[in-house]
Structure formats: C-alpha cells, structure tokens
C-alpha cells in the first residue's frame, strides 16, 4: 500500500515536469523553423549564384531609366530604383488612405440607409450592396476605366466644368430681377475665379493648381490654433457636464472655430491664394493639377466595392445593439439624435471596428489590382517593372511583401488602439 509522502508536493523527474516539457517542445519547434529558414536562404542564394544571378540589394542604387506618370515626389528617368520604390509606395498609400476615408463615409451612409424605415431608401441600399459585392473587383476597375472614363472626349474636345460660367449665369439671372449689387458680387467673383478651370477628358480630370502666396502660413497657424481651442473646449465642456450636468454644443462651436478662424485670417490677409490655370497646348493641357484616369478609376472601384462591405458591417453593428437600449434612452427622455449619438453608436462601434479593420486591409491589398489598368502603384512599378529590369525576384518580392505586411500591421495597430479606446468607455 502506498502512503502519502510527508512534506511538500510529490517530486517528479525533470523530464516529466510539464513546464520543462512544454518549454522543450517549443524550443524544438523554434529550432526547426529557424533551420528551415536558414536552409531556404542558403539554398536559394547558392542556386542563384550557380546560375549567375546577382543577389543583394545593391540594385536599389542603380539608375531606373523608365518614366512614371504619377509621382508625388520629384522623379525622372535618371533617378534610382530606390526612388522608384518610394514613388510606388507613396502612390499605393495615396490610394489606400483616400480609399479608406471615402469607403468609410459611403459605407456608413449605405449601411444606415439599409436600416431606414423608408421602404425605397432601404431597398436601394440593399440593391447597391447586393450588386456591388457580387461582381469581381477587377471587373469593376476595368468597368470604370474602360467603360466610363475611357469614353470621355480627347483633350481638344474637353468638357469644361468651370465655376465661372455658372457664377456669371447666376449673376445675369439676379441682374434680370433688378438686384444689381448682388449681381455685381457674383460677377466679380466669377471674374476673380477666371476662365473655366476644371476640364474632363480621357487624360483625366484637370484642375487649377492653387498657388499659396505670402502670409499663407498665418492661415495654417490659425487652423492649428482653432484645433487646439476646440480640444480645450471639449475638455472644459466635459468637466462642466460632470460638475453641473449642463451640456454645451461642443460640436457646432468647434466646427465654427475650425472653419471660422482660418477663414478670418484668410480674409484679413486679403486672400493670398492665386490659381495656375490649365491651358491646352500641343497634345494636352499644360499647368494645373491633373488626376490621371487610372487613379480616378481605381479609387471609384475600390471605394464603391469596399463601401458595400462596410455597409454590411455597419448595419450588423447597429442591429447588434439591443432594442431595449434605445427604448430605455427614449424612456429617459433623450431625443432621437442624442439616443443615436450617446447610446447606439458607441455600442455599435464595439462591433463595427474589428471587421472594419479587415475592410481597410482588404482595400489596401486590393489596390495592387491597379496593375490591370496601368496605375503606377508599388506593385506595378516595383514588383513589376523594376523586377523585370533587374531580374532580382527574391529581393524585390521580399521587400514588397514586407511593405504590404508593414502597412497592414500599422493599420491593425491603429485600429486596435481605437477599438481599445472605444471599449474603455464601457469600463468607466
């Protein structure tokens, strides 16, 4: 018969200790993974050397020699592949950031529309979601590029979308009913703006380029000041609410500050902005800002496509808030707007934010479909053209993977931080 051992827990052999065992297995697994990675690297570089391929990252310093049609920084054919990488990366980020912002706005509108008690609006929202999310994205990009933007007229037959013709027409209309002073105001505004400035053709959308004059930095300072004031106002309003229970219209005041202060500065300085107007010369417009159709098509497709998914995320999030919450809020006498803002949205956000992150990541990664329409994103100019000119597939694919991974992880970190912040409110 066995007896209980006196004093302390039973001793076990080291190899039977569960802690030691689990650490041992994890160490074995780690060694195996590292060994695989090492074998992979050594093998690949040996094979490449055996076949006479250069390896390493020296190619980033070589001259690229090819042109790129949209660059956010200065770039010419004499620049290096390293600069090509930066140009491509910025073009990818441009699409990703603008795309995420607009997809979120459109997605929220459509998601809320689907919940509308209005039969027509709800059905329209539903039809949008079901149509857009069931068509392949590449097809939609090509649709916008070839079927919509591709049918625009050539540069010499551009469609002018001037603000000036509209304003002077309004001025003429007002003059006809005798209000000369107001009419003159419109006309001089039209004259100040100058000749038609927005053109639409198959080379893209051409806009006047704003040139900032002397003293414009004061406007920027006014803007920064307004933002700081708005933040201070919010803190003060919250404290007052906690202390006295009285609310303050923070939103409207902040809006007034952020718009009003820079505007006042602008007017006080005598509007130090002039415009460089695009002019048709030779083959195309010279001067002004131009949005290339590849960018426009890609953004339209990505925004509308991702918005369909975001709409469903938003709808799901709002529906996840129990009905009793809004009933209770209404019973307490909160108005509908306040109920939505203070009760429903904060609770819905908890459900919305994680899948919304997924959609942001999808949009960013889907932007590599740009290669189908010749938009010069990272994937097209770096993992495409540069790879083809330098033949350094492993390095370039590795860099490209690392970049997409980094963008995605940064997005995730930001969204997780936001999510944690949203959730903290419920723990107070």
């Amino acid at each position, binding site marked *: 018969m066995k007896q209980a051992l006196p004093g302390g827990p039973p001793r076990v052999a080291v190899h039977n200790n569960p802690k030691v065992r689990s650490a041992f297995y994890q160490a074995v697994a780690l060694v195996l993974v590292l060994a695989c990675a090492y074998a*992979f*690297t050594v*093998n*690949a570089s*040996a*094979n*490449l050397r*055996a*076949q*006479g*391929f250069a390896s390493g990252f020296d190619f980033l310093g070589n001259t690229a*020699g*090819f*042109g*790129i*049609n949209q660059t956010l920084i200065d770039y*010419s*054919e*004499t620049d290096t592949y390293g600069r090509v990488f930066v140009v491509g990366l910025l073009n990818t980020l441009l699409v990703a950031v603008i795309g995420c912002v607009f997809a979120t706005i459109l997605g929220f509108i459509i998601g809320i529309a689907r919940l509308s008690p209005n039969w027509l609006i709800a059905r329209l929202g539903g039809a949008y979601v079901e149509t857009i999310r069931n068509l392949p994205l590449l097809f939609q990009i090509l649709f916008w590029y*070839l079927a919509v933007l*591709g049918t625009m007229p*050539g540069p010499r037959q551009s469609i002018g979308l001037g603000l000036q013709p509209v304003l002077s027409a309004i001025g003429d209309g007002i003059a006809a009913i005798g209000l000369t002073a107001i009419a003159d105001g419109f006309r001089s505004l039209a004259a100040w703006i100058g000749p038609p400035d927005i053109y639409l053709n*198959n*080379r893209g959308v051409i806009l006047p380029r704003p040139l900032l004059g002397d003293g414009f930095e004061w406007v920027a300072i006014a803007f920064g000041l307004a933002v700081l004031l708005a933040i201070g106002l919010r803190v003060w309003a919250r404290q007052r609410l906690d202390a006295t229970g009285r609310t303050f219209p923070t939103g409207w005041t902040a809006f007034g500050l952020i718009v009003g202060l820079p505007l006042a500065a602008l007017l006080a300085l005598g509007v130090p902005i002039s415009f460089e107007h695009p002019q048709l*010369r*030779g*083959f*195309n417009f*010279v001067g002004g800002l131009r949005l*290339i*159709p*590849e960018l426009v098509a890609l953004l339209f497709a990505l925004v509308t496509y991702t918005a369909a998914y975001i709409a469903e995320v938003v709808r799901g999030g709002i529906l996840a808030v129990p009905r009793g919450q809004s009933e209770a809020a209404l019973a307490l006498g909160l108005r509908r707007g306040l109920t939505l803002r203070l009760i429903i949205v904060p609770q819905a956000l908890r459900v919305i934010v994680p899948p919304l992150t997924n959609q942001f990541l999808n949009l960013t990664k889907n932007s*590599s*479909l740009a*290669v*189908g*329409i*010749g938009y*010069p994103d990272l*994937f*097209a*100019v770096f*993992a*495409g*053209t540069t*790879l*083809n*000119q*330098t*033949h350094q*597939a*492993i390095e370039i*694919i*590795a860099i*490209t*993977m690392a970049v997409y991974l980094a963008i995605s992880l940064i997005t995730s970190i930001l969204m997780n931080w936001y999510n944690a912040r949203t959730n903290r409110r419920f723990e107070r």
Partner: protein
Amino acid sequence: MKRAIFTFGMAIGFGLMVAPATAQTLKAVKDRGSLICGVSQGLPGFSNPDDKGNWTGLDVDYCRAIAAAVFNDPSKVKFSPLSTKDRFEALKAGEIDVLSRNSTWTLSRDATYNFIGVNYYDGQGFMVRKGLKVNSALELNGASICVQTGTTTELNLGDYFRSNSMRYEVIAFATADETIKAYEGGRCDVFTTDVSQLYSEKLKLAKADDHVILPEIISKEPLGPMVRHGDDQWFDLVKWVHFAMINAEELGVNSKNVDESLKSNMPEIKRLVGTEGNFGEQLGLTKDWVVRIVKHVGNYGEVFERNVGSGSRLGISRGINRLWTKGGIQYAPPIR
C-alpha cells in the same frame, strides 16, 4: 494578385530546389515527350493563337523547329503564353524549356540568360493617329505614350525623350492587349514598341488606316529566343536549330526540295542534310536533324515570308533580315 502568387511561388520553388538544374533540359524534354515553349500572349506574325487554339508565327516556328529536330514531329510543343513581365521568371524557374517571345538581346539579360541568336532584327518606333498631323517623333513633345511594362521599349523611350529634351507622360500596362486598347481608346497619343510589333498591333485596330507609323527608329532591338544559363548542351542545340535554318536558306534547301537535296553531291549540302558526317549527333540529335527541321517547318526565308513577310498579312519587307549574301545581316556559322 495572380502574378504575385505566381512570382512568389517561383521564388519559393527556387529556394526549395535541391540542386541547380544543369545539363538536363534535353533529357527532360525527351522524357516528357514534348517541348514547353514560352511565347507571347498573342502577337500576329510572331506568336498568335487562331480560333482553334493553333499557334502560328515566326517565334512559334522556332519552337516547332526544335520539336522537329528532337522528335521529328513539330506538333510536340506545348505553348505557354507569357506577359513581358512574367517571361524571364518563367524561364528562370524552369517552367519553360525555351523562351521564344520577341525578346530583345541586351547585356543585362544575357548576363542572366543565354540568347541563342537573332531571329529578327528590329528597332523601336512610334505609331500615332493621322489626325494629329505629326510627321516626326521629334514633334512628340508633351505627348501621352502607351507602353508595355518591363520592356526595353520603356527604357529606350526614357532615353530618347531625355536626349531630345522633350517631356512626355508614360502609361505602362502589363499586357500588349491592355496597351493597344488604351491607345485605341484615346488614353494616349502615341503607341510605342518594336516596329514589327507596331505593324502587327496595327492590324488589330478597328480603323487601321487612321494610324501611321513614324519614320524614326530609335533603338536596336535584336530579337531572339533564350534559354537558361548552366545547360550548354541545350544552349548549343537551340542555337544550331537557328543556324541550320539560315544555312538551309543560304544553300537553297527548302521544305519542297529537301528530299531531292539528300541526293546532292555538294559537300556543304551533304553536311547540312546529314548524308556526310555526324553533326546532328554531336548536338545530341540524329544525323537527319536539319532534314526534319526543313521538311516540317522550312528554312529561315520560308518561315519569315510565311509569318511576317510578303506572304503574310503583316507584309513587312525583309530589309536587314535578308541573308548576308543578299545585302542583309542574317549570317550563320558553317556546319562542319
């Protein structure tokens, strides 16, 4: 995305490859029973599938000639259509045995692959709409230009505009079809590529007569098939298939008279058709290798005329692609 997966897959495959592929291509081709040949995604005259999926063209006939030499059957070829972007990776990773895809011979490419020779001497040119009333490439300042990405064309374009201090906007597409579609849709004023390709792409345009090819040739574009580094036997074999076709033309041996040439007493012809010497065997082939090539596919002149020359829809004149004996620069070392 598909391309990313493709390229990435190749990178992985490359890393996992246990031993570098050497001197195995001919054996692999024989074991497989067919040649895998990388071609374009559709370029009339060079490599183009018809509505039944049969490939024709100058580059395609080179693949068929290799298959004829190895198997005595020009149909034992599998064609793998590749974009300009993917072509070299496919060759590097061993997806194809030979890349016969109107690719320009350059130093940097030759340093990583082997060019077997020049089967078409080409140069880069420009196509514009007649309506623009442009007569010279030097009038193209400020133009929008459609180009296929990953090509020497893209680099020559940069050089040309830079050296003439002209501005341009480049729009680079991944496939030839996307590029020509964008040009036709008016996205660009100019379409630029090798002149041979300009002629063949022009045929695809709805109103071919509204477009004109400008006289300037801005680059040397010697086009030819390529093989991987590290397999000298296969390199020699493919190279001599090319030389055999040129030698056959030079000696007047063609697909119609090749059987009679077996009875010829001319020593050069005897060596060519294998009635004297064992030249085919030195390449790992049979003695009658040239007979097989010429009977099934034809000599260089026949292949040229049938696909891109006066006998074809493209109607390009032989020009510098004539034999050296006729004022051109096509020349092959002797079989001896």
